[in-house]
């Protein structure tokens, strides 16, 4: 698996929730390193579940999952945590920023579990905020920032540790179309230096900006196109 340069691979993955609800029904997909992929589909199609399985936050009910060369089904909680700490950056629709903490500390806290020292983390955080264009807002709290700026902080938090995989779940869902567009452009730019980007969206225009689009419906992949 690792020799082929595949960043993430799902093989016949099913996810069943208590009560017999299937979120995923036998999904197989390979995402090569450096790919930029949009996952589109209506709500309830299983795209968020796929993202959480790719992000090793959940294990599948059946099937095989490999992420960054790690067998997710076999790995221990500690190994998966290590994978998330070093290799995977998440961007959420609702930002998940700590309101009482400055932008730079929010970003630095994103590297908390890498074991890096506070000064190292803050240095990386300043650089990351600089990259997302918020170098002048280091000490602002999330409440003092606009929605687009908050999402930039969240993106900086995902990127500060230089992950090989970026997973974004509807990152523009809470933003107006202008800031949303800017965020997508930023993500493309940041991922272009080698990171694998998987982004969930239900916006066809956003999906259109991606080189590869995976369509989902009822827990299955119904389309996988490259444009």
């Amino acid at each position: 698996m690792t020799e082929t340069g595949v960043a993430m691979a799902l093989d016949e993955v099913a996810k069943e929730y208590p009560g017999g609800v299937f979120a995923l029904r036998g999904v197989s997909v390979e995402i090569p390193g450096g790919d930029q992929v949009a996952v589109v589909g209506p709500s309830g199609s299983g795209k968020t579940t796929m993202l959480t399985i790719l992000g090793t936050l959940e294990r599948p009910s059946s099937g095989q999952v490999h992420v960054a060369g790690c067998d997710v089904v076999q790995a221990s909680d500690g190994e998966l945590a290590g994978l998330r700490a070093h290799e995977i950056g998440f961007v959420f629709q609702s930002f998940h920023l700590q309101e009482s903490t400055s932008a730079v500390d929010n970003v630095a806290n994103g590297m908390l579990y890498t074991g890096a020292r506070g000064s190292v983390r803050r240095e990386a955080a300043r650089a990351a905020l600089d990259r997302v264009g918020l170098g002048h807002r280091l000490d602002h709290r999330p409440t003092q920032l606009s929605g687009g700026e908050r999402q930039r902080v969240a993106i900086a938090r995902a990127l500060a540790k230089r992950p090989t995989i970026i997973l974004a779940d509807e990152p523009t869902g809470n933003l107006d179309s202008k800031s949303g567009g800017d965020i997508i452009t930023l993500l493309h730019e940041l991922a272009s230096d080698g990171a694998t980007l998987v982004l969930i969206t239900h916006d066809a225009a956003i999906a259109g900006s991606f080189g590869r689009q995976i369509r989902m419906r009822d827990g299955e992949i119904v389309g996988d196109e490259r444009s």
Partner: protein
Amino acid sequence: MSSAAAPPIRTRIDRARLPPRELLGAALQGLRTRKLRAALSALGIAIGIGAMVAVVGVSSSSQAQLLAEIDSLGTNLLTVTPGQTFTGNNEVLPAASVPMIGGMGNVLRDAAIYQLSNAVVLRTPFVPAQQTGGIGVDAAGQNLPEVVGTSMSSGHFLGPVSDRYPEAVLGAQAASVLQITQVGGHVMVYLGSRWFTVVGIMKSALLDTSLDSTVFISLPVAERMFGAAPNPSEIYVRANQNDVTPVSNLLAPTADPQNSSGVDVSRPSDALEARAAAKGQFTTLLLGLGAVALLVGAIGIANIMVISVLERRSEIGLRRALGAKRSHISAQFLAESALLAALGAVVGLGLGAGATEVYSVARNEPFVVPLYALIAAPSAGLLIGTLAGLYPAGKAARLSPTEALRV
């Protein structure tokens, strides 16, 4: 699929790590963002620890006071009294025991008293002779106050004049029973069948309070007027401080070489020291109350942490997404809980010390908070907080990250 643009694939993943310093920082931040709640939940622990520290501090302070009194009175006083025979009758100390003991090496001073069983002291002859108020009459040597470590509250003790004229000195308790507060102006008591002039009133003799309810006259007068036998009923001995034990061992054979087993020797400061030790024993009831407050405080912290886990589900989910292991999450909540309680304990230590200070100033006693309390209080806080945090921490660690993120 192309692998040309693929980043270097790692064969070994670095571990997720949370160094202790970073853990502490995360826990402190968790507390800082909820200051009021943290303060209120730490209050229970503060009250519990405060109560316990105050109990320990107050009892230590009054113990220190008593020990200081013992120190000033001296621990080198020994008493020699006649014991009891095998059949229960009282032994008699030989008259020669007084000069014998006075001649011993390492004896600094000594004074004897002679009980007069046939004499009663009354305010006036009109008081029935049975109403003695428990006051005994003793003949005493002139240096008695000095030897037993007390002084006069009024007037002077028996002197050379007292050997020839009927003069009496009252113990503190005897004076108050006879309602005599001051000497001078020909204060008299009716002793036996004649009037005695009261020349002095003694202060309480802490080392032997039985002297307080006694009226003293001189031995020559006692022998002349009451036919007193020259056998001492008690001999007080001040020994050289470093030789108290050898002197104590030699007193009985010196007092009565023929019947040393009929002589009792004791050290009055022992009883006071035992009393001081008893004061040092904490008031169990109050300590129990403190423990109850601690328990309530611990439950309060556990309660607040459980609520906190529910409220902070999205934070927990985020931390898991950022690479926290389950153990990192539980460690953070445990640390918050332990810090909270330790904080409360330190505040409680301050409260308890303050209460002790107020008490000691009001009672004019030395301020003492035992050193171990400075270590025990925060340690107890840490322990209680850790125990209280166990359940919420486990609950937080078991939370599914995706469910937590969905909030």
